[in-house]
Structure formats: structure tokens, C-alpha cells
């Protein structure tokens, strides 16, 4: 076992995929994500106003998306008797999300146990790499424009430390909504002078008079800005609608087909 100490405060480096990570993706910007038809339909039905519902206002990113955002503190939980690492805790600043990566090989909860946004994670060292397998995730998203990730998905993450830098690679397997595994990497820099601030959140009524049970969504074929993104950047509509093929270099010619028109 080559256990590496990941403890400390890590500041996320946002230069990679910046437009998606800070302003957020455009509506119907699905390229690069191996969505199936069902997930594409979910994205096209997604109205951002759903985030005004009280059930949504304080949700954290799920663990498989959180690698992209927010500084985090990592600390180890040591078994006092054996002095072995029992678990690794991660606290994100945004929405104060906490997760534990259990290192003691404990049994996973049964399939009928409750799921959570951070899921249930077991970790082990593979050389210098911390490999983490997560199950029991709540339904959430792979992109912040309505592309879904189901609650039967599982993830595998690799935490790779290189000195004061760390790369986290997250691989999502979702038999419901992805035709291939979806892989993202994110970089962090050690920043122990940084504090992880509290992040209180209290749901409120954001839209007065909203009917009880109202769920914002777009009807099929009625998305108000379906190809606004594709047309603005002269991309083919096929590219904007995503799918596994749009993640590969050879698709570039098709993606830019609109320019040639």
C-alpha cells in the first residue's frame, strides 16, 4: 500500500472547461456527453425555472459533479487502535456538502437503503492513486442544463496527487442515461491558507402565487431556445444535441458542418 496523504485545503483550478464551470453551459449544449435519446429528451424538457422550487433551491452538486467546483477540505479519520485510515472526509464550500470515502472495506448498504447526493463511497489505494467507487447516488445531473444522471448510476474516481497539485478523474456509468462511460478530470492546487467558509441555505418562496404542484418544464418541440447555442457558434445541430459520437475528434468535421453552409 502506498498511501498518499491528501489532507489539506485544495483550491479548484477552473481553467479547464471554464465556460461550463463558471457561467455554466448553454441550453441545449450537449456535445461531448454520451447521452441517449431519453437523456436528450430530458434535457430538452428542462426548464431552469425548476430551480425556483423549494425542493431544489439548496441541493448540492452530487459527488460526481462536485469534482468540478468549489474548494474543498480533505482530512483523514484515523482508527485510534489500529492507527489505520478509517475514512477520508471531503467538505466542499459550496452548499457545505460533505462526503466520506470509507477506507475500511465496510459493507455497502443494501439496494433498498436511502440514497444521497454524495452517495456511498469506498476507497482503496492503487499505487499512489486513491480509487473510489460510489453507489447509492440520488438522481441528479451530468451537466447543469438538464442532462440527467440517474440514481442507478455508479462512479469511479481517481485522486492523483502530484506535489501541491491534485487531479481528480471522475468516470460515470449510467445504464439509464449514458451510452458510454462519461469521463471528466479536474485539477486542484493545495492552498492551506484558505478557509472553507460556512454556507447556510434556507429555501424560500421565490415565485409568489406559484400553483401548488407546478413543475416547470418545456413541452416536446417547444423549447424556446433549442438551437440558439448551435446557431450562435455555427455548430451543427447534431453536435449540439450530443451523443457519444460528439466526444471524439473525428466528429469535428460534422460539428463544424454548419459553418460550411
Amino acid at each position: 500500500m502506498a498511501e498518499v496523504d491528501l489532507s489539506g485545503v485544495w483550491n479548484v483550478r477552473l481553467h479547464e472547461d471554464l465556460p461550463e464551470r463558471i457561467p455554466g453551459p448553454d441550453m441545449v449544449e450537449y456535445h461531448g456527453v454520451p447521452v441517449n435519446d431519453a437523456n436528450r429528451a430530458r434535457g430538452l424538457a428542462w426548464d431552469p425555472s425548476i430551480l425556483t422550487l423549494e425542493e431544489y433551491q439548496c441541493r448540492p452538486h452530487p459527488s460526481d459533479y462536485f469534482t468540478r467546483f468549489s474548494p474543498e477540505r480533505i482530512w483523514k479519520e484515523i482508527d485510534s487502535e489500529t492507527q489505520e485510515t478509517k475514512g477520508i472526509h471531503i467538505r466542499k464550500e459550496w452548499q457545505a456538502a460533505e462526503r466520506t470515502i470509507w477506507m475500511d472495506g465496510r459493507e455497502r448498504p443494501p439496494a433498498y437503503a436511502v440514497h444521497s447526493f454524495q452517495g456511498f463511497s469506498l476507497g482503496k489505494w492503487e499505487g499512489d492513486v486513491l480509487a473510489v467507487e460510489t453507489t447509492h447516488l440520488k438522481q441528479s445531473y451530468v451537466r447543469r442544463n438538464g442532462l440527467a444522471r440517474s440514481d442507478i448510476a455508479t462512479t469511479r474516481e481517481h485522486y492523483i496527487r502530484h506535489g501541491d497539485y491534485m487531479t481528480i478523474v471522475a468516470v460515470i456509468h449510467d445504464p439509464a442515461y449514458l451510452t458510454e462511460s462519461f469521463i471528466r478530470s479536474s485539477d486542484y492546487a493545495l492552498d492551506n491558507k484558505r478557509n472553507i467558509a460556512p454556507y447556510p441555505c434556507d429555501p424560500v418562496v421565490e415565485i409568489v402565487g406559484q400553483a401548488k404542484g407546478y413543475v416547470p418544464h418545456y413541452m416536446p418541440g417547444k423549447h424556446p431556445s433549442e438551437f440558439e447555442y448551435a446557431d450562435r457558434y455555427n455548430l451543427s445541430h447534431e453536435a449540439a444535441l450530443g451523443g457519444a459520437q460528439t466526444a471524439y475528434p473525428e466528429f469535428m468535421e460534422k460539428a463544424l458542418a454548419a459553418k460550411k453552409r
Partner: protein
Amino acid sequence: MSMNRNTVSKAKAAALAVAAILGAASIAVAAQPARQNRNAPAAPAQQAPNFDNVQIKVLPIRDNIYMLVGQGGNITLQVGEDGVLIVDTQFAPLSDKILTEIRKISKAPIRFILNTHGHGDHTGGNGNLSKAGASVAGGNMLGPIAVAAQGQGGAAPAGAVATILAHENVLTRMQQSIGGQPPSPDDTLPNVTYISEFKDMFFNGESIRLFHEPKAHTDGDTIVYFRRSDVLSVGDVYNTNNYPVIDKARDGSILGVLKALNHILELTIPKDRQEGGTLVIPGHGRLSDEADVAEYRDMVTIIHDRIKDMVGRGLTLEQVKAAKPTIDYDPRYGSGNGPGSTDRFIEIVYNDLKAAK
């Protein structure tokens, strides 16, 4: 008292179980991982389900509340000094196994069985488990007498059964022959019913409120709210495996299901970051909280809205099906056969909305 004394013969039990399944629009959906359930082939209609290999698994929920998972609807167990309270009872042939697990948790007498609705996968074990218990009645004497008799292996006095409590419509429907299926066995019928919007109880130091959810999965749905434990046991108005099963023969409706789901969301309070807090035991599937129910409510609402729009535009049922109004949720909730199938769900929603037009 040995459970065997009150357990019907294996052959008869299997036959009753078949009847229960066929009579219930809600076919048993075992609480297994969702995809396993969804893709599992339907049991041949005439073949008795094999309960021999079913294991009853216990999930401690909170304080004195447990969830029991086997075959059929999830069971909720509340235990304490007053005795044992059970919400739903799965199938009769599983009663011995269920009772064995209950007795590992509590030796106290079973006092109450609450039914969330009348389908056989939730009520089949009513008779066996009620006979294994004893209600407190007759000036608080009958219960102790019954318990004493049972403890000595003697015959329980008449009336020495646990109370079976449900909405009045459950009793009515269980006594009817519906869809060519026989009425439910007498010993599974509720012996106490309520007809009001809600009914209150206090048991094991806890306030318990039963809410009637009209015309939802059936016309007799109850959701049970354990207020101190902050746990809801909601029966089949919510499940995590399939699209809602709406039993039209028992006057269920899509609007009733939506109303019930929104009611559950009113009752749930997340602990932090929109998760945890109030826990929800579904009729089938995994333990949930507000966020899970919200996702399910959203799905049902969105599909309802789409079909309503199509009905408003005059589309036929075949045209609605061809338009695939459930396409985005089929990988998660869809199935090709049975009462909870995608086609059946679309048909029921369509017909409900067309009738309301």
C-alpha cells in the same frame, strides 16, 4: 402460540397468493434494485409465485421504526412498550418468515396492522399476523388474557387478534369480486376502518396520523405518518421502481396520485441541503426522502402535462403512444408488461384526462 397453528396450508397459501396477485392491479414488485425489477419477466399468470427462496430483510430506519423487505409491498414496523404495529403484511406464505424477523426485534404482542390499501401483496399476511397478535379490548383485559394464553401454547380466546385498520374503502373492495377474482379471505379483512380525511392514533409514545389519499393508487389509500420518528409509510402512491400503478377497477386516478405525491412533499421536511430529515418508505423500492419524492412527482407531473396537452389537441390514444410521452423516463421507470407497464400507464392517464375533458 406457534405460527404454524394459524398458517394456512402451503398449497392453499400459494393459491391465495395467486388470487391476491391476480386480483390486485398492483402486481408484486419486489424491492430489489430498480433495473432488476423492471427487466424481470412477468410471472406466468397461472403459476404460483415461489416464496421458498424469499428472504425477509430488515432495515432499521430510525428509533423504533424498521422497514422489512421481501416479496410484495414494503412492510413498516414500529415497536415499543405498547407492542408492535405493522404497516402492510405482504403475502400469506411469507408470514412465518416475517414473524420470525419481527420477533428478533420485539417479543411484544402485535397490536395493530395498518393497511395502506387493499391489494394482496400488502394485505395477504393480514390474517396470519393478526392471529399472531392480540388487540387490547374488553376493558383492557382481552389483550393480556390472549397474550397469556398464547404464551402457554393454549388456544387464544375469540377476538384475540391484532386490530387490522384501514380506510373503509379497503374493506369494501376486499369484500368484492373484482376482475373475476374472488374476494379476499375473511381473516385478512380490516376489522376497524375509518372514513374521515385522517385518523389519529397514539402508540409506543408516538403520535401517528393516517391520511386518506382519495382516488390515487386505489380509492382506499392511506399514508401513515409517524410524527416523532419523522417517517412516512406511504404504500403504492409512491414507488421507486415503476411508473405509478393506477387501479381503475378500484377507482384510482392520475390526479389522485399527483395530489398524494404533493401531499407527501408537504409533509416531508429535509434535514439539510434538501435531503435526509423526513424519511419515506415507499410501497415498493428503496427508502426515500423528499428529494426522491420530488423527482418522482416531477416525472409524473411532466408526463401528465404532456398527455393532457395531447388530449387537448385531439390526439387518439395510438397517436399519443406514438409520440412517446414517457421517452425520457422509460430507461428508469418503464416496463413492457404488467399493470405497471409503460403502455398501461399511458392508457390510464389518457383515459382519465379524456374523461375529464
